[in-house]
């Protein structure tokens, strides 16, 4: 069986809702049936075959080629299989991802991994704001799974994140871990201001210490045994985080403005 491949053949003016194109939705469907699926396009709808050239038949292994940032909701509600995006992706990549793996080789817009439940989302490029955040009206963001970003991420990474792991090898914007409820976010690059703003629980792991606001309190430098387990759990993802050897960190706790017990761990440069 060949991977089911959608090659974008037209330039899109508006955002296209691709939520229907997931392994669980396309299982046991013929090419004809897939071609006739209607996708939301601005105020109208487009058939799949109007936008994509469709080849292959293995719906458990889906490729998007020549993709653009107009393709929203790729991998939304996905519960099985693999999705490879050879290009960019729009907003809400991996929205409510329940299981399986999504690998975006390009950049994504905002709200990637929004409401994500489980599975793995890898982004080779950069991603927009609210990575792992919550969709409008919800009080909990990402609830599980793992997100790996090789490039940079925008503001509000992990906003209201409830559980799971986000690893960003590049830089992140302001308000990283804002309103975070639990989970772990690791950043190897620069971090914008107000990290951990209104954070309740959870762990922010930074290799470069940002300017922290007044309600994040320094608890001193410590050797924390749990970091061995944390770093060991990073190993399968083959990131630069695997190079971290130290268990020595400067620990900040907050946000005390909201009686929070979250932590910012700054990897000690002396190790």
């Amino acid at each position, binding site marked *: 069986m060949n991977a089911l491949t959608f090659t974008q053949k037209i330039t899109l003016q508006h955002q296209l809702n691709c939520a229907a194109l997931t392994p669980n939705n396309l299982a046991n469907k013929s090419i004809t049936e897939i071609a006739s699926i209607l996708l939301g396009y601005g105020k109208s709808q487009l058939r799949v075959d109007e936008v994509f050239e469709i080849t292959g038949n293995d719906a458990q292994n889906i490729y998007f080629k020549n993709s653009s940032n107009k393709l929203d909701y790729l991998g939304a509600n996905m519960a099985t299989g693999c999705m490879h995006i050879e290009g960019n992706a729009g907003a809400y990549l991996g929205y409510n991802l329940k299981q399986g793996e999504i690998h975006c080789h390009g950049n994504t817009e905002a709200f990637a991994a929004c409401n994500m439940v489980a599975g793995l989302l890898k982004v080779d490029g950069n991603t927009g704001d609210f990575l792992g955040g919550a969709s409008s009206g919800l009080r909990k963001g990402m609830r599980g799974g793992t997100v790996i970003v090789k490039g940079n991420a925008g503001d509000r990474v992990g906003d209201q994140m409830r*559980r799971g792991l986000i690893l960003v090898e590049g830089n992140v914007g302001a308000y990283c871990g804002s309103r975070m409820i*639990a989970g*772990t976010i690791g950043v190897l690059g620069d971090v914008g201001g107000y990290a951990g703003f209104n954070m309740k*629980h959870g*762990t922010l792991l930074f290799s470069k210490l940002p300017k922290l606001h007044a309600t994040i309190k320094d608890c001193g430098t*410590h*050797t*924390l*045994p*749990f970091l*061995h*387990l*944390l770093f*060991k*759990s990073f190993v*399968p993802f083959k990131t630069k985080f695997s190079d971290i050897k130290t268990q020595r960190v400067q620990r900040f706790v907050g946000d005390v403005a909201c009686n929070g*017990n979250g*932590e910012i761990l700054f990897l000690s440069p002396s190790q």
Partner: protein
Amino acid sequence: MLINGVQIDDTFAEAFNMRGTRVLITAQNLKWAYHAANAMTGFATSVIGCGVEAGIERELNVDETPDGRPGVSILMFAMGSKVLMQQLETRMGQCILTCPTAAAFAGVESEERINLGKNLRFFGDGYQTSKLFANKNGKAKRYWRIPVMDGEFLCEETTGMVRAIGGGNFLILATSQPAALAAAEAAIDAMKQIPNVIMPFPGGVVRSGSKVGSKYKTMFASTNDAFCPTLKGATNTELSPEIESVMEIVIDGLNFEDIAASMRVGIQAICNLGAASGVKRISAGNYGGKLGPHHFKLHEIMAESTS
């Protein structure tokens, strides 16, 4: 059966169903791992008076422990799941939480889980935090970090509970107390190499083997007079005139095969000393086969050793 001049009685050890668990204790170094483990397995020789039977199974090197520190594995057994859970939590709280640099992790996987750090976390008074880490099989496990005065106490939330067997045993009958003890020590050294078993009594050896019942109404077990050398003339003795000392080794384990293997290597180690060492017979304790479902027949066990 005679092995190197030592008589192996045609009898069997009678053992019982138990519930067991394994806990991995790590610390900054082996010295402190042993401090924690010795405290946790202290006063855990017999379910009769201690609630559980526990012991150190073996040392763990840094590659075998979840946090990459040296440690030891502990096996703990009880007659029921409720008492096992209760004893485990109590001992975790008083012996591992309190021990400098110690951490505790699950040592056995099973569907049935019992609390390890699940309730200990409340010692953190709200400052405790949990982390979910996926293991090598991708299954997420929850760990608790409890702030304590030496830093952080790290503990897995639960450990597995499995069906186990307790009460495997054999008796060493010797012409003197030193000879019996030397033989017991040789046996224990060999038996410690077998995984999944512990010998819960002091040094692995028990001198006060018991029988069921007593002349006193309040006692449900009393001295095994048939094997007491100083009562040879006063009771229906099992001992021949030259026997002056009897020592017993009791084995608890996670399965029948490993208990049998430990008995085999233990008895073989004694037989290797030869009859000249003072050891004359190896026997075993049972209740006529009516109480315990697991029978460790000495001749069958040692036949594999001699074959």
